[in-house]
């Protein structure tokens, strides 16, 4: 009955074992960031990969999660865990609001993409001038290690925390895949009119998808804030995370559970490699990502997952 969740659970368990055998901070930090990007990408993938609504502005959710967790703690003295939860809820509510404005107006394709980009940019500008978010100076979460403050001294704990977040997100996506909502979401991606004719409430499906998507990507932002303990508008709402979120999914395999995780590992490895080879040459990372994107779109439109599937010998050529 729960067969479909098994592969995800097995891989999560294997990943959870990594800190027990690997003692290198470099490796754990690398994985922590990769998992955080995979989490942001999993949110993007639910809306973009399964639902076909391409967002260029998922930074708006990432940043909102990040700022929520920081502002609620620093300005209002709210417990870190509660603030973290609030950040996720806020991301989902913001998703609903953006969905309500865009989907009800019938925005699709590149129009939707551009409007999401605009939302992220507006958020970035507001955060860079608003005193509540620390304006230009940014906001610092005071260092207080401990379980209650959600600041993990040991690298392994932070790693396990983000792995748990990613695990929950992947299980949610996997569960959706095998349910009515998943079938309807994919139908909306493939052909809205046909979906509508078959009784699919297209607006409702899109709203639910963007709410879940916003919540998941907001959790990645909240994790970012709790890990690096410093935010400014460019970090939280900058285009970098909008790009990373969609790239992880596209490189790994759009519209698949595994895509964002695989894509994040590959992209993070590439960007580390780029740093080693090219030093800190500005823009090198983006050039590298651009090249990867072109290669993937040209030669492996279904990403790493698609490549793997096409290499595997066909089982049971039925029909």
């Amino acid at each position: 009955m729960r067969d479909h969740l098994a592969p995800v659970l097995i891989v999560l368990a294997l990943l959870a074992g990594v800190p027990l055998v690997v003692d290198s901070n470099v490796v754990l930090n690398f994985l922590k960031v990769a998992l955080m990007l995979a989490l942001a990408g999993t949110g993007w993938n639910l809306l973009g990969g399964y639902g076909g609504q391409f967002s260029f502005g998922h930074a708006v959710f990432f940043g909102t999660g990040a700022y929520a967790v920081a502002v609620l703690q620093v300005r209002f003295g709210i417990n870190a865990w509660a603030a973290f939860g609030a950040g996720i809820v806020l991301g989902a509510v913001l998703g609903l609001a953006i969905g309500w404005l865009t989907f009800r107006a019938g925005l699709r394709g590149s129009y939707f993409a551009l409007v999401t980009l605009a939302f992220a940019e507006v958020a970035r500008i507001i955060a860079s001038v608003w005193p509540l978010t620390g304006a230009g100076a940014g906001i610092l979460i005071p260092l207080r290690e401990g379980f209650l403050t959600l600041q993990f001294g040991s690298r392994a704990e932070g790693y396990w925390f983000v792995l748990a977040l990613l695990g929950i997100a992947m299980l949610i996506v996997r569960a959706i895949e095998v349910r009515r909502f998943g079938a309807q979401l994919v139908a909306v991606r493939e052909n809205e009119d046909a979906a509508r004719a078959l009784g699919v409430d297209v607006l409702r499906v899109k709203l639910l998808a963007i709410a879940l998507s916003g919540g998941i990507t907001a959790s990645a932002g909240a994790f970012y804030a709790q890990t690096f303990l410093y935010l400014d508008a460019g970090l939280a709402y900058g285009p970098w995370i909008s790009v990373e979120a969609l790239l992880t999914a596209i490189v790994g395999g759009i519209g698949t559970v595994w895509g964002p995780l695989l894509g994040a590992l590959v992209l993070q490895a590439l960007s580390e490699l780029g740093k080693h080879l090219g030093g800190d040459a500005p823009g090198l990372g983006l050039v590298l990502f651009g090249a990867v994107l072109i290669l993937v779109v040209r030669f492996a439109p279904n990403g790493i997952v698609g490549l793997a599937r096409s290499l595997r010998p066909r089982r049971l050529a039925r029909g």
Partner: protein
Amino acid sequence: MAELLAEAEGITVRFGGLVAVNDASVPVPEGCIVGLIGPNGAGKTTLFATIAGFQKPNAGSIRFRGADITRLPPHRRAALGIARTFQIVQPFAGLTVRENIAVGAHLRHAGRADALAAAEAVADRVGLAPLLNLPAASLTVAGRKRLELARALATEPQLLLLDEVLAGLNPSEIRDMIPVIRAIRDGGVTVLMIEHVMQAVMALAEEIHVLAGGRIIARGGPEQVARDPAVVEAYLGHGAAARLQGGAHA
């Protein structure tokens, strides 16, 4: 006469200056196959779209089981039991045939396993069973038409709107489809079909409405409509009926 399942009443649809449908009324008795025929551009597809909820009429109303549904969106009408196919087929190209049909089946079956089972049963009825695992994009024209039909059927409709499901099929494929459509009606589904393939409408429909220039110009049984001079003129041009009559006497 059986009770009316659905009724389009006084429907008018304008596209800018063009009146695509002009005060057209089509009653659909329950349990029948009703044909809607007419020359290209007559407004048949547009009239269909108003019944399925894809096109708002400028005037007139749509009734289903006595209730006014003129303002309901398409997905609500589907839930009530109205399903349509598209003249220009609209497959979910990236999905398999099974997944395509399952989207329709999900309207009445929440569970995945139920919906998939229902999808397979429908595929059997329309002759798509051997193709269930193929991507929809790989189907031939005939296959895609069957898929349109299968998806609509999977929603378990009471009223099925078929928009030229036989167009583009070869004569033997058409012969295969006629019993399929008849079996759907015999299964209790009322059918309203747009069709250019006369031999098929004549064989299937109990009642035919003829639309030309947006207006209903004739209605009745197949024989009666085929003999109607107004219908012959609409298809073949002004004076054609008289010429044909003359030819028959010669």
